[in-house]
């Protein structure tokens, strides 16, 4: 006889159309893997071309889904996958990052004689993970996406097997990454427990026993939002939210959870560093924002008491404010004293996570009408950061040469007039990272800060602007070193290979386009409000 009970299984609403981008990219990843296995090392171009084609097809599918993001019910697979502008705009950012990384890594793979096919496969799977993080409407789905991303990235960080720094970077990333995943998972478990409801379960063997009542929580983000006020154990909810915040804080490298970043970014191969600073960080933001904005929204209570939802909302918003200030300040101040370019850019990436967090705080405080704008501003900021950061790292890759030998700031002495193309583009990216007007970085900062001002966060914006002033020192410092210092050692200008030239042209064009005409992009990003909010009833 059968004494087991189960919550009645609901048939999943199957909708392959909603998953089309992820499906296309997964299939591409498998195909690239097989091509690599069956053709050997002889042709490096084939897997790169295939990857680019797959990414382009995925981008096409994403754009094709764009109009249907406005539809009424755009959730499927038992509410696990959601279709909204936030997902699609983040997906586009990931695809751009992945495509540029393929192009940047082409030259590096050739220098070091690395198995290109494996690298491209891992990159594609990491991208699929990022996309699932953005499209998951369920904590479990987001966690799975995160793990798909992380495991691929751990391997990529240690891709130069014979280099001790690369090994160290990979191991550190693995240990601290698993540590933060554990936090996240514990947070998910606590939230599940805190949102427990009584569910009547039917006995499976018909007529065996009467109905039993069991407790079941939820990991679905929309369902959590509906239950925050009437959970059985409110303190658990706070603990769970705190754990989730720590987990995501690790992933986006926000202070005080940033300690792994410099070592990992310095040791990893430069193209991988470029990818890690742009892609996984944006994916972390996608999941972070979806979970906190949509699962723990401001929920007013009907009675006199302040509701659990409102308290929770205040608590995480306050914590996020502190996180943003710390992240900006630590990133910028520590970047001042760095002597290694990759390390400096690592701290700069921490600082930029702080600026993006300013927009996140604004999105958290905003009502649902303004929330879309704030989210779009953050996505725009991350897109701008991805473009200029990848551009900068492309130049760093070329100057570092095989084995990442020349990555000290000293190595950049006086190269300005000998290789004008490289140093001028690097200067443009540095100025954009700094936020000089007419560049993408400026437009991103303006949008994020104006959203924060609109929600009344004066001091946050003041601190942000002060931090930008601090960052002038190290961004301009590198430009000064390149143009106004004497070269002490011999410098042979490297030949710029075609793939890297393409990257530089694309990123320069992107920085200038986003800096001059941001309107089109930002309008596309905020097309409609996130669907899970509108479905809150």
């Amino acid at each position, binding site marked *: 006889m059968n004494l087991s009970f189960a919550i009645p*299984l609901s048939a999943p609403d199957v909708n392959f159309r909603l998953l089309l981008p992820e499906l296309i990219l997964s299939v591409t990843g*498998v195909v690239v*893997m*097989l091509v690599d296995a069956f053709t050997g090392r002889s042709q490096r171009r084939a897997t790169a071309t295939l990857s680019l084609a797959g990414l382009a097809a995925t981008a096409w599918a994403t754009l094709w889904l764009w109009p249907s993001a406005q539809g009424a019910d755009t959730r499927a697979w038992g509410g696990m996958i959601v279709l909204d502008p936030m997902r699609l705009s983040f997906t586009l950012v990931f695809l751009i990052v992945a495509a540029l990384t393929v192009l940047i890594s082409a030259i590096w793979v050739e220098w070091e004689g690395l198995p290109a096919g494996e690298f491209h496969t891992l990159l594609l799977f990491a991208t699929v993970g990022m996309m699932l993080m953005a499209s998951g409407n369920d904590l479990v789905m987001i966690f799975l996406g995160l793990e798909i991303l992380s495991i691929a990235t751990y391997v990529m960080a240690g891709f130069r097997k014979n280099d001790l720094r690369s090994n160290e970077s990979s191991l550190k990333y693995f240990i601290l990454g698993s540590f933060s995943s554990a936090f996240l998972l514990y947070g998910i478990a606590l939230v599940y427990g805190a949102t427990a409801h009584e569910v009547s379960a039917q006995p499976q063997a018909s007529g065996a026993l009467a109905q039993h009542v069991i407790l079941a929580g939820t990991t679905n983000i929309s369902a959590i939002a509906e239950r925050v006020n009437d959970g059985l154990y409110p303190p658990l909810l706070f603990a769970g939210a705190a754990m989730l915040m720590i987990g995501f804080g690790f992933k986006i490298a926000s202070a005080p959870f940033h300690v792994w970043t410099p070592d990992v970014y310095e040791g990893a191969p430069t193209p991988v560093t470029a990818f890690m600073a742009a892609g996984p960080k944006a994916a972390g933001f996608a999941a972070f924002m979806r979970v906190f904005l949509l699962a723990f929204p401001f929920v007013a209570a009907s009675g006199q008491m302040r509701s659990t939802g409102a308290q929770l909302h205040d608590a995480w918003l306050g914590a996020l404010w502190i996180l943003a200030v710390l992240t900006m300040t630590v990133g910028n101040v520590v970047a001042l004293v760095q002597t290694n370019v990759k390390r400096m850019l690592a701290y700069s990436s921490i600082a930029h996570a702080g600026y993006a967090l300013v927009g996140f705080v604004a999105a958290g405080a905003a009502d649902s009408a303004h929330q879309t704008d704030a989210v779009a501003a953050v996505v725009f900021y991350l897109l701008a950061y991805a473009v200029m950061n990848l551009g900068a790292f492309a130049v760093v890759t070329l100057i570092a040469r095989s084995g990442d030998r020349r990555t000290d700031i000293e190595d950049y002495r006086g190269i300005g007039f000998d290789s004008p193309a490289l140093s001028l583009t690097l200067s443009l990216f540095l100025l954009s990272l700094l936020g000089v007007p007419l560049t993408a970085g400026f437009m991103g900062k303006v949008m994020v800060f104006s959203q924060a001002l609109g929600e009344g966060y004066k001091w946050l914006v003041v601190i942000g602007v002060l931090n930008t002033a601090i960052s002038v020192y190290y961004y301009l410092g590198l430009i000064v070193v390149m143009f106004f210092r004497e070269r002490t050692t011999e410098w042979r200008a490297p030949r710029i290979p075609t793939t890297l030239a393409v990257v530089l042209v694309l990123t320069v064009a992107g920085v200038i386009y986003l800096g001059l005409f941001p309107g089109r992009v930002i309008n596309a990003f905020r097309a409609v409000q996130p669907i899970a909010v509108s479905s809150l009833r």
Partner: protein
Amino acid sequence: MFNLSDYLPIVLMFIVAIGFAAGNVLLSQLVGQHKATRTKTMPYECGKDPVGNAHERFSVKFYLIAMIFILFDIELIFLIPWAVVFKSFATAGRDLGTLIYVEMMLFVALLLVGYVYIIRKGLFDWGERARLEAEAEGRALAETEARRRAMQAATTARAA
């Protein structure tokens, strides 16, 4: 409530499992070739030297094999719950049988792709080198054994 006959399938499972293990050992005893080399007659210790220092280095291949094992272990872990709920999805007006079947076959096919990949990457290609290593190890073992015997013989001779 307790009914011993409910546990008959478990007993059957035990019998099959024991029979499978014992049957294989017996079968290889009866049918297989017997070339008693030095290495082969050693007590079996998962491919390691059974007597010696615990701080021994061992081949990284063990890790790879362990990882592949996990690959197919996971496959099984997913297959069992799938098989349990399959019927309830295929019937009862849901008509999801085809979809669920195809999905699982896709999953299995993906793991198969992984398998093909590792074969192509030469993971099981231990071949010539591994055999040479094993033979060298066998020779070394035989030599130490012979030396020990010789020494023993010498001491007994001296004592006598």
